[in-house]
């Protein structure tokens, strides 16, 4: 595939089938997608359309039945479990609806954890974690434990953990969860800012308002990409359209 040299994420004709025989379910059927630096792609589609499967494959949490997934040019299929785990820790940030914060660790320890698991010194990991917490607007709450933080603050910690260090690929699955609309918007604002600073992102969402933050929106239906949108590019056209 040409023109994808600078791709942070690339899916090439990816198929994923769960199970075998007559009970087999084809979750993805020949999906190709390229996400470049500075680009946020939203994935929309009804339940069961393959959105979460796509995200799991993109993040190396699952392997395709056929086709190829590359992160920063590295085919994930060529990595063994250890190599894959390392790439996930270093290169990919995940933001899920379930925050998965560890209750026995403070906010800054939660954020520093992936770096420490990757062999960074405690001091360096803590410094980077504090920088990430500052980026999400929580510089003063690093020593609090998750149960001492509001839902919105916990989500910010989870985002800081996804953004900490030099992650170039951010994968988000319904990241605003049950947050109120203002807090949810703040979360997307943070994500957008990191993307604008040069990361690449994939956002799975069923909320159109959130997909509005993306540069491109792709629609999945029954495991196939059926449509893609980019912004209108003409403010005047949009505003005149709103005058009905």
């Amino acid at each position: 595939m040409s023109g994808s040299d600078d791709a942070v994420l690339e899916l090439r004709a990816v198929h994923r089938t769960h199970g075998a025989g007559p009970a087999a379910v084809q979750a993805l059927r020949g999906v190709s997608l390229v996400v470049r630096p500075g680009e946020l792609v939203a994935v929309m589609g009804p339940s069961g359309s393959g959105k979460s499967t796509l995200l799991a494959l993109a993040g190396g949490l699952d392997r395709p039945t056929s086709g190829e997934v590359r992160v920063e040019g590295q085919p994930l299929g060529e990595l063994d479990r250890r190599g894959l785990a390392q790439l996930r820790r270093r290169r990919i940030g995940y933001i899920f609806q379930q925050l998965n914060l560890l209750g026995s660790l403070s906010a800054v320890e939660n954020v520093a954890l992936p770096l420490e698991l990757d062999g960074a010194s405690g001091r360096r990991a803590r410094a980077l974690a504090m920088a990430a917490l500052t980026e999400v607007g929580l510089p003063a709450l690093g020593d609090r434990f998750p149960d001492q933080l509001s839902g919105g603050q916990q989500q910010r910690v989870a985002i800081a953990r996804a953004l900490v260090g030099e992650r170039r690929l951010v994968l988000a699955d319904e990241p605003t969860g049950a947050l109120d609309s203002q807090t949810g918007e703040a979360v997307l604002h943070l994500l957008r800012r990191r993307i604008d600073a040069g990361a690449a992102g994939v956002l799975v969402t069923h909320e159109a308002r959130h997909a509005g933050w993306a540069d491109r929106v792709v629609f999945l239906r029954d495991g196939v990409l059926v449509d893609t949108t980019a912004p209108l590019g003409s403010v005047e056209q949009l505003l005149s359209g709103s005058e009905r």
Partner: protein
Amino acid sequence: MSIRHGLLALLERGQMYGYQLRAAFEESTGSTWPLNIGQVYTTLSRLERDGLVRPLPESEAGQRPYEITDAGRADLTLWFTTPVSRTDRPRDELAIKLALALTTPGVDVRSVVQAQRSATIRALQELTRLKYGSDRPQDLPWRLVLDSMVFQAEAEVRWLDHCETSLVRHQPSDPAPPPPLPADADASHAARWAGEEARR
């Protein structure tokens, strides 16, 4: 919303002449509703005729400011305290289009739904971009206007999703041409509903 009440609201801040009113109007609606100066003067003269504003002596520069009257203030208060009626809004062409698509032979309704969804999300992307770029405190009125458009667009997409789910549930998977008379209860309901909408 009428330009009339927009101008009254602006004059409630203090006296202004035509060009000032136009600029203030556009500023407070984030230029979503551009006015030409002719519309401003036509509206001012109607407001004056109805006793809701009164002209003041011309300035040396030849500009004639207007001020709001007590009757104008009462009219404005009534406008602010009266909810906007949904029946005053334009008919929803999209709802009618989809209802008709369901009962028109040869129309791929899912494609109609998807085409609209793409277009609406494209608009949402642009609106979000505008919002992202306006985060100064003085941008608040403009941001709220944008939010209103964002939420309307979102509601439209949710409704389209709902339509699609209903189609998948209630339509046969084989896209055979529908019978001449809609036997399906949903389709006949949709057609009847569309008819009622069109008559309104």
